[in-house]
């Protein structure tokens, strides 16, 4: 599915962070967001995912097509790996969790409680959740944090399979995953004061 933003202004806490963004991502391709900390990568991802409304402009597709993966993975420590994945698979009404477990070699950990996983294992579980959503558009925020080289490769393979199936992805990452992707430097779209004044309801 195609992702398109037109005249998009995205902000956090009522303050515009990015403005005047126009981009499009064709099916089968990915968009890599780059920029220093605090530049607005997370804000943009949350806006595309429909977690916050755009302050101006439009963004496609509809939120029902997007799966979001943030810094926090939303996995419950008191549930096992399989239970966590099954919950999300059930909520999204997709089939089994086998493919997701295989993608990150989680099958041996299936019955382990999520609170007993290491940081990297937990991250793998959080990323495996993307597969059970069955959504065509993925928004991922720093997905490779605490992954080792082997698992970063597994992740890249997962995203590549997703793209080959006609999906699209927006990733905020500094690692080269070898994807067929365009790069967007969000620092160049930093909002200026006029946007902020209009958003706060005061005449500039």
């Amino acid at each position, binding site marked *: 599915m195609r992702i398109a933003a037109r005249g998009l202004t995205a902000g956090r806490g009522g303050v515009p962070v990015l403005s005047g963004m126009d981009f499009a991502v064709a099916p089968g391709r990915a968009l890599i967001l780059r920029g220093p900390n605090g530049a607005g990568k997370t804000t943009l991802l*949350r806006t595309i*995912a*429909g*977690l*916050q*409304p755009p302050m101006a402009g439009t963004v496609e597709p509809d*939120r*029902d097509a*997007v*799966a*979001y993966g*943030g*810094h*926090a*993975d*939303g*996995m*419950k420590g*008191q*549930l096992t790996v399989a*239970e966590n994945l099954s*919950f*999300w698979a*059930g*909520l*999204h*009404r997709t089939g089994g969790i086998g493919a997701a477990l295989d993608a990150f070699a989680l099958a041996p950990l299936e019955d382990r409680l999520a609170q007993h996983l290491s940081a990297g294992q937990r991250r793998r579980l959080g990323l495996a*959740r993307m597969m059970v*959503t069955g959504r065509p558009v993925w928004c991922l925020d720093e997905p490779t944090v605490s992954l080792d080289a082997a698992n970063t490769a597994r992740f890249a393979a997962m995203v590549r399979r997703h793209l080959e199936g006609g999906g699209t992805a927006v990733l905020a990452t500094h690692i080269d995953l070898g994807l067929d992707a365009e790069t967007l430097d969000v620092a160049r779209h930093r909002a200026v004061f006029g946007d902020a004044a209009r958003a706060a309801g005061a005449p500039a």
Partner: protein
Amino acid sequence: MIRLVTRDLALAVRAGGGFGLGLAFFLVVTVLVPFGVGPEAAILGPIAPGILWIGALLACLLSLDRVFALDREDGALDLLATAPLPMEGIALAKAAAHWLSTGLPLSLAAAPLGVLLSLPWPGHLWLALSLLMGTPALSLIGTFGAALTVGLRRGGPLLSLLVLPLYVPTLVFGADVARRGAAGLDPATPLALLGAVTLGCLAGLPFAAAAALRVSIR
């Protein structure tokens, strides 16, 4: 939606979920009352319905700040918001899970605790019935309050301040059912009104809670 309810129940029941806390709190409050007002059945009997209702109400309040806060901390609330479940459904499922893990056990425990407070006999049944009918409203109102305060750092005390005044109608009608039942009067009128409050909450509050949630997560 059912899946969200069952997941929340599983989380509540497993270690660290705090399932029994509300119940234990209810027991402790009930046990403390005679120390405060004296052990005579003539004093305890008439105030028992009201005390037990207030105890149950406070026990309900105890677990409210966890309704959305835990899911927000670990990011699950964001993921739920993007899941194919409307926000209203999330609010309703959360209220249902809260009721099943607190309101329902409290309602069942109230009748035996009535014995401790010398509640006159038919009152036990009416007390249990009024709690069964009234606690869903408490959970729904509480879920709304939790949705208002989920984004705040010190939401707990504020949550109580917002939610307790909203509990007045439920408490008035609920305690009156139990009181009339214990005194051998006809509790039909307050029972009907209590049912009306609960159904009204069920019809309206998931929408208000969803509106608050949408604001809180952005």
